[in-house]
């Protein structure tokens, strides 16, 4: 813990990088001990991990028996089950459709990250992208064979829950944030109660609610299917968190902006829509990406109420009696998929914050 600022080592700036590295690794007795300890740990762990992951792994074993004879991971299991894990039980010949839908959804998300696209018409891009993905999955038009949503599964379903979730939760969250900042006591109270109630309970209780209570709420004969109910629960949950983040952005807008808008004779919705929200949302894009990451991770919870998302697909693949005992491989595989998506988004959020900081200091 010796010294936290570079000022502690004024001489380091003058040295070449090997000398700097040596100073960083062995600069003080504590640092030297930590370095040795960590190198030893890495020396123990990394070769063992690499052996399991790569060198001792079975990549093209024909069956589980052959896999069990090697000491490393059985990637043949993942190779054997990759269609089931990635695409679920969607009809085999039609699997290009969920694949294409996933590509469209990812493209929509990537578009939203490009600053030039962060305009009003981005909502249109989302609308078209989600509609296209939905049509591809459902089918029934343009000569596509209709596919019931109980056959959907795997990565496309996870992506759909996340993107449709954010598309539904974002407008609701913005409205809730505006409501919470409203001067009208009844509107404010309704929004506060909603936000605090939702934020006080775990998502799983909302999912249970959607699966056992929602059917009771509706008149006899009216049923909403399981997937849509889970999607509603996710939207309701995420909206409360988005509302709190957007509220933070609204609070960051100086009073002068409201007064300026009022002096131009703008009404409430004009003030919010053209002056306040564009600024407030720009401030909180970073935290909003953070919420999207949690939302993406949280979609895995739907497997608890029996929806065939990526996590559930992996569980199903593991439970095949012919391939028993390879759960670690399946978890590492889908863990890597979740990681790629979330890590990319968190890098983007970090980059966004850094570029904003350099802009403001310029």
């Amino acid at each position, binding site marked *: 813990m010796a010294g*936290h600022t570079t*000022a502690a080592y004024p001489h380091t700036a003058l040295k070449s990088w090997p000398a700097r590295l040596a100073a960083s690794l062995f600069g003080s007795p504590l*640092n030297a001990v930590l370095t040795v300890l960590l190198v030893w740990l890495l020396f123990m762990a990394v070769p063992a991990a690499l052996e399991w992951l790569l060198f001792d792994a079975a990549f093209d074993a024909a069956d589980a028996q052959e896999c069990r004879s090697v000491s490393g991971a059985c990637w043949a299991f993942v190779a054997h089950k990759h269609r089931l894990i990635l695409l679920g039980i969607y009809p085999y010949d039609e699997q290009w459709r969920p694949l294409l839908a996933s590509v469209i959804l990812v493209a929509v998300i990537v578009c939203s990250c490009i600053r030039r696209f962060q305009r009003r018409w981005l909502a249109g891009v989302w609308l078209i992208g989600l509609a296209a993905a939905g049509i591809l999955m459902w089918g029934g038009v343009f000569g596509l064979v209709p596919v019931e949503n109980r056959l959907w599964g795997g990565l496309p379903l996870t992506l759909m829950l996340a993107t449709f979730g954010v598309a539904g939760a974002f407008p609701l969250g913005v409205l809730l944030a505006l409501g919470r900042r409203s001067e009208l006591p*009844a509107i404010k109270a309704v929004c506060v109660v909603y936000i605090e109630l939702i934020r006080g309970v775990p998502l799983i*209780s909302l999912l*249970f609610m959607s699966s056992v209570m929602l059917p009771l709420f509706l008149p006899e004969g009216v049923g909403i299917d399981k997937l849509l109910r889970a999607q509603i629960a996710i939207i309701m949950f995420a909206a409360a968190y988005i509302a709190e983040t957007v509220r933070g952005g609204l609070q960051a807008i100086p009073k002068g902006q409201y007064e300026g808008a009022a002096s131009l004779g703008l009404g409430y919705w004009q003030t919010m829509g053209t002056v306040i929200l564009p600024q407030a949302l720009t401030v909180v894009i970073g935290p909003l990406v953070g919420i999207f990451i949690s939302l993406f991770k949280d979609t895995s919870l739907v497997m608890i109420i029996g929806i065939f998302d990526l*996590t559930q697909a992996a569980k199903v693949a593991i439970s095949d009696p012919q391939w028993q005992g390879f759960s670690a491989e399946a*978890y590492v595989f889908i863990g890597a998929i979740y990681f790629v998506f979330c890590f990319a988004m968190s890098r983007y959020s970090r980059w966004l914050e850094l570029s904003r900081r350099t802009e403001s200091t310029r």
Partner: protein
Amino acid sequence: MRWRALLYQAVLLAAVGLVVWYLLANTLDNLRARNIATGFGFLGDEAGFAIGESMVAYTPADTYGRALWVGVLNTLRVAAVGIVGATLLGTLLGIARLSHNWLVSAAAGTYIETMRNIPLLLQLFFWYALITESTPGPRQALNPLPGVFLSNRGLAIPWLEGGAPGITVLIVLLAMAVCVVLYRRAVRDQSTEAYLAVRMLPVLLMSVALLTAWWAGGPMQWQVPQLKGFNFQGGLTLSPEFVALLVGLVLYTSAFVAEVVRSGIQAIGSGQWNAARALGLAPRQVLRLVVLPQALRVIVPPMTSQYLNLTKNSSLAVAIGYPDIVSIANTTLNQTGQAIEGIMVIMAAYLTVSLSISVLMNWYNRRIALVER
């Protein structure tokens, strides 16, 4: 303008009321059609299902009410231990992330990014599979430390047994309260002797407390688990479900806590470090007397929400079979058909915990907040 404001509010309230009334009417109709009685009367009925682990006596002959109480205690147990673990590990990681040692900082960074970007549920499945599938049976249990055994039956650790646990806890809590009161008085009066005396006091009071408890409840013994037959006897055996849930929650949350601690320390400008060092304070003193008190102000609010997240995330217990409140309420509502009441019990339990933690942390936050003119 005023009338329009009133109109908007009236419309909103009417809409909310209408929706609630519509849902309520439908629900009552549906319940009547399915012959399900409403109300919490079922809490007094016999539960009839066994619970794997419980902190209070429980048998299937007990009531649903008691079963739910067992669930609440189990949730609190894993959340309390998890919060302590995540705080300790997360603080270490946050400090490591800021280390000048490139290797230490990179290792902490890798850990944090990995944990934060993989769903907790998946991590729980991973740890649970690791414990139940990859560890040996009790006879060949792993023995990483003397007296600690890890097998597919869970983790067995040495524990104090005998005595009167209730009285011990009570007396120790009392002793702690006495220490806190005396410490605050010493700080208020700013007298060096009192301050020094108070620093000695905890050890003294704790020993007195433990001795009294021992005297009140008979000898307490340090029990080490022993393999008897097919399982471990003596000591404390933690179930695989509890261990997997605790490990998952602590490792996952500690990554978030680390980020909170890191940003808290980074929020303290380098001027503070330099000024403290210019006064001749040792590095440890700089941290303890200058940086930490200021960093805590930044850290406490986000830390509160991490504690709340951990508590709420403990509900994922239902996926690996740890009998927490969600899991038991779920069993209850499946058996009785009392869906609405079951969900209400879950929500009420979490809201109570969430609100009490935030009240407690708000109180603490007010206490350490900067008193401005």
